[in-house]
């Protein structure tokens, strides 16, 4: 059996060159892995996937043009057997859930990559799912929580942008009273004391992005 044949073929997707380089450097020293392609956004990732059909795709979430979740949905829609591992900075449960729904088989924090990446690639390639404990805990903690509605997420995002109720109402073409109602629901669902607290929780749980 030729060595090349047994190698795990990997596509690395991240908009940050230095991070891609790091991944490449780490993979280069592994006899059982080979980096076959790179992409710097979701759209490129889908294209590269079609061309190369990698065994494993390493996917960043926050990227320009097309984000990681959309790219995963596109890829998994075409190739349901695709094995994708998400690499991201924060462990918000909502973000994790979104990624898992989109078809991720593994979820890694970038801060843990140097210790976890290689093992995770091998595990996922072997057909397992893998999630680091930090992420799993986060997920379990909020499993029973009420999810925010699409509208509530919109409102939360506008709050995080520093908008007052009046401005939020104008932007969403709803009344200020309705906005207040949404905010009340948001606070209750997130267990937040106030608007700013809600934004903090929203960021932490990946409901909204930085």
């Amino acid at each position, binding site marked *: 059996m030729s060595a090349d044949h047994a190698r795990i073929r990997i596509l690395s997707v*991240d908009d*940050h*060159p*230095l*991070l*891609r*380089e*790091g*991944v490449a*450097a*780490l993979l*280069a*020293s592994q006899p059982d892995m080979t980096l076959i392609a790179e992409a710097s956004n979701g759209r490129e990732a889908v294209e590269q996937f079609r061309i190369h059909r990698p065994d494993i795709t390493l996917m960043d979430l926050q990227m320009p043009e097309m984000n990681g979740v959309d790219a995963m949905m596109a890829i998994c829609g075409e190739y349901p057997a695709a094995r994708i591992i998400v690499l991201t*900075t*924060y462990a918000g449960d909502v973000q994790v859930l979104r990624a898992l729904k989109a078809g991720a088989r593994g979820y890694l924090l*970038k*801060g*843990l*990559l*140097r*210790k976890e*990446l290689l093992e995770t690639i091998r595990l996922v390639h072997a057909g397992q799912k893998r999630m680091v404990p930090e992420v799993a805990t986060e997920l379990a903690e909020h499993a029973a929580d009420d999810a925010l509605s699409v509208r509530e997420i919109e409102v939360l995002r506008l709050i*995080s*942008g*520093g908008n*007052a109720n*009046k401005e939020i109402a104008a932007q969403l073409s709803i009344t*200020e009273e309705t906005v207040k109602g949404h905010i009340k629901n948001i606070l209750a669902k997130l267990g937040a*004391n*106030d*608007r*700013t*607290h809600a*934004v*903090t929780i929203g*960021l*932490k749980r990946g409901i909204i992005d*930085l």
Partner: protein
Amino acid sequence: MRGAAHFFFGIIGLALITFAALRLNLQPGAVSLLYLIIVVFVSLGAGFVSSIAVSLIAVFGLNYFFIQRYSSSGARNPLDIVATVAFLITAWVITGMVARVRKLTEAQLILRFEERLAERTRIARELHDTLLQSFQGLMLHFQAVNDLLPPGKSKEALENVLNRADQAIVEGRDAIQNLRSSTTNTNELAQAVAALGEELAGPRDGERPPATFRVSVEGIPRDLHPILRDDIYRIAREALRNAFRHAQASKIEADITYGERLLRLRIRDDGKGIDPKLLDAGRDGHWGLPGMRERAQQIGAQLDMWSEVGAGTEVELRIPGPVAYGTSPGRGRFPLFRKKKEAPQEANG
């Protein structure tokens, strides 16, 4: 009644001016100018009814004491009505203009808060997108090098360093996330200040027992802009830190007053006090005084400190209500000069 003090001083002012003017035989023109100052002063500070009342009293005084109602020939002097109307209009216009300028300044301050929040968000995003990603990428490079090293001391040493670096990056990551949200997790200023006091009073190598700490709130707590709240919180932190660390106080108190016209934070201790000379100079960043003043200035607040050796210290921070709560100035000022489109104001305070 709102602005009762203004009204009261206004009446006294009018009486004094009238008395002095009669004694000194001042010209009606001079008297009306002095009256004007009083009327504008009251109108800016007090409610609509008080302003009208003071204006009418001024008009009456002017007519009764100073304007000749009848000319020598016995006919009614037409100038008295003209003078009265001119007086009222002038008072009204000046008040309106001053109120307008004040409001613009407040709007500008609020705008500045928004800018600072946006700026912070931008910095957080930038740091996240560049520095953090680069470091995480570099860590992978280092790990690759580490993998190349043969087992031994140098590999161990590098491994240790990398673990440290991991921690540093996590700290950086969390700091970036925090930059985005505010330092205080709760909008309730009193709560935040109370938590602060608890934290500062916490275990020390204390040869003396920690000071007792009490927070009291007056008025209905209201939402503050995150940036403003942050700055108030930081000023409070500095003041409390001084009280707990340096003052050797046995009692420390924080009062928060949510007034319609003013948000006030007062922190008092019964400690050894600060030399007033130091208080003015704020020498060498001692007690973080210059920082507090700078912060207060930035948010358009007034910071005052009183202290004497042996007599404790009091720090008072006052922020105009419209700036603090991000609302337009209170009701009852010459309505014509207020913007027509205005949200109905809740009747609190």
